[in-house]
């Protein structure tokens, strides 16, 4: 029933991922549109709260995570110089994972939620998703276990670390919270998942992707082994502490608050180390970004990663937090890592890996260009609308401007966000169409080749 074809898991995870980015982002666009026309689709299933949480969960655990698994099913065996332990298991895990995501999607639209940011799926979905993640991790660890290359390349540290950390944060964030009395403790447990889903899954797999893609795309050696060590171990040590900064100035003890602020700032160390390594590797290759869309996506991803990690630590400071907390700013910031940085690197991974799997170039270079520019410009319009909105909103609240008036002040910015969001959404259709065409043509060409060979023989 499940195919054993070489690289089929990688390809199929990518296809599913791109399917879900369309669904997930349409939920996001609906969320943005509802802020302009609150009456839109105002029924039992599509109320604002349902749609927003569905958007968040789908883009992270459906689109981004599936794209990550897809690239790991290619990059890990390549780095280990062996084949995937079991393509069949990989494909089975894909089907299972998609069923679970579908369950979670409907549960959210139905109104079931755990009310934990990045962990909204109800308990019965959480358990199944954990099993699905476990299947993927088992398969990939087994693959590394049978490796032909003794040394582990940096990307492998990141991938293997992430495959351990994701189940761990998932368990801590989703399960004990059910038995802990609600309140501050539950909030802290929830934010352990909330921030580590970003820090020890999205960031670390994404950084691993970049470490793989940059030397491959530029043909240049990795800049520094030492920097990659500093980066990896500092992320592994400090990221896990970041949860409490989401409850900054809230009713948490001062020492917990400090234990959240300090590691947030200390994160500048791994981030700068990683980026120095990337840009050191890029030295002399910047001009290639003009022609190579995958490289351009990767480099743009590193730039957005830098900006996300300049904002993040500053936002953790109590004084900054007191202005921008609960404003639109946070939403802009929250999109920069998952979309600007790591969706971009995943796009690059797809554009790099898919042609290698199907044995044919991407169908349309112009569609790739359109994908890049719509994504980038759309995101910039989206993000700057929200950042300006957030600052205006934050200071208006401090001034004591009546709340309803601040809502009305936000109108142009919310519209700007929806326009940028629409561009981001449209961009993904170029990706989906291009992938569809490429895979279809590759199949056709293979068939023709086989026929020609049969005819000539």
């Amino acid at each position: 029933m499940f195919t054993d074809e070489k690289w089929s898991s990688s390809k199929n995870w990518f296809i599913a991922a791109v399917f879900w980015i369309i669904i997930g982002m349409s939920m996001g666009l609906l969320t943005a549109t509802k802020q302009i026309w609150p009456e839109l689709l105002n029924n039992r299933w599509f109320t604002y709260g349902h749609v927003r949480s569905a958007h968040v969960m789908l883009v992270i655990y459906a689109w981004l995570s599936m794209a990550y698994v897809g690239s790991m099913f290619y990059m890990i065996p390549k780095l280990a110089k062996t084949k995937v332990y079991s393509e069949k298991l990989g494909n089975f895990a894909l089907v299972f994972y998609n069923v679970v995501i579908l369950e979670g999607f409907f549960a959210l639209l139905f109104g079931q939620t755990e009310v934990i940011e990045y962990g909204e799926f109800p308990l019965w979905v959480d358990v199944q998703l954990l099993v699905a993640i476990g299947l993927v991790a088992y398969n990939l660890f087994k693959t590394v276990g049978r490796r032909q290359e003794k040394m582990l390349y940096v990307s492998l540290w990141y991938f293997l670390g992430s495959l351990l950390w994701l189940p761990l944060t998932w368990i801590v964030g989703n399960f004990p919270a059910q038995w802990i009395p609600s309140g501050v403790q539950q909030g802290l447990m929830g934010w352990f998942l909330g921030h580590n889903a970003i820090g020890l899954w999205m960031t670390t797999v994404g950084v691993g992707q970049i470490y793989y893609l940059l030397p491959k795309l530029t043909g240049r050696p990795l800049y520094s082994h030492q920097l990659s060590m500093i980066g990896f171990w500092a992320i592994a040590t400090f990221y896990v502490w970041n949860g409490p900064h989401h409850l900054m100035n809230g009713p948490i003890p001062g020492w917990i608050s400090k234990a959240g602020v300090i590691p947030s700032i200390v994160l500048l160390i791994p981030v700068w180390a990683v980026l120095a390594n990337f840009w050191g590797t890029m030295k002399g290759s910047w001009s290639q970004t003009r022609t190579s869309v995958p490289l351009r996506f990767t480099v743009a991803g590193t730039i957005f990663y830098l900006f996300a990690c300049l904002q993040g630590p500053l936002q953790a400071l109590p004084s900054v937090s007191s202005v921008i907390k609960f404003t639109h700013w946070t939403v802009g910031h929250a999109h920069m890592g998952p979309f600007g940085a790591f969706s971009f690197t995943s796009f690059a991974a797809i554009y790099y890996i898919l042609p290698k799997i199907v044995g044919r170039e991407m169908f349309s270079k112009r569609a790739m260009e359109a994908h890049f520019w719509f994504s980038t410009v759309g995101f910039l319009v989206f993000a700057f609308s929200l950042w300006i909105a957030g600052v205006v909103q934050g200071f208006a609240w401090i001034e004591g401007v009546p709340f309803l008036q601040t809502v009305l002040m936000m109108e142009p910015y919310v519209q700007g966000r929806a326009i940028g969001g629409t561009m981001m959404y449209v961009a993904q259709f170029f990706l989906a169409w291009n992938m569809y065409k490429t895979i279809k043509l590759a199949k056709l060409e293979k068939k023709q080749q086989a026929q020609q060979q049969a005819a000539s023989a």
Partner: protein
Amino acid sequence: MKKEYQQHESKEADIVSDIKIEHNKVPKLLVVVFYVVAIWAIGYAIFMPGKLAVEPAAAPQDNKGELIFEGTCLSCHATGAAPDLSGVTDRMPEEDIKNVIKKGRNSMPAIGHLYTEKEIDMVYEYLKDYR
């Protein structure tokens, strides 16, 4: 197999999984940043409260009369549902005005139980300047 990574000084590139890895030194700027961040972290841990120090709002309440007047009275007296109140202190004595506020008159409800004597005084003070 371990020796490849221990050749840091030699500056020769390793090759892992067909990817070349160089052993360039950590840029000096980064080393400075690392130290600054580390020192800051220790200082913050020892000296800072970790939260924003906020003083309890001790806002002067001398505009309370105005707030009550705009928040309560004007919902009727500015909409045409009830008479305009500008210059009302010229037309009625102080006692009567306060009584109307406390006990109501015709279609106006009694709202005396909502406010203290002092607050009603402040509303009256405000009305004196309301033209």
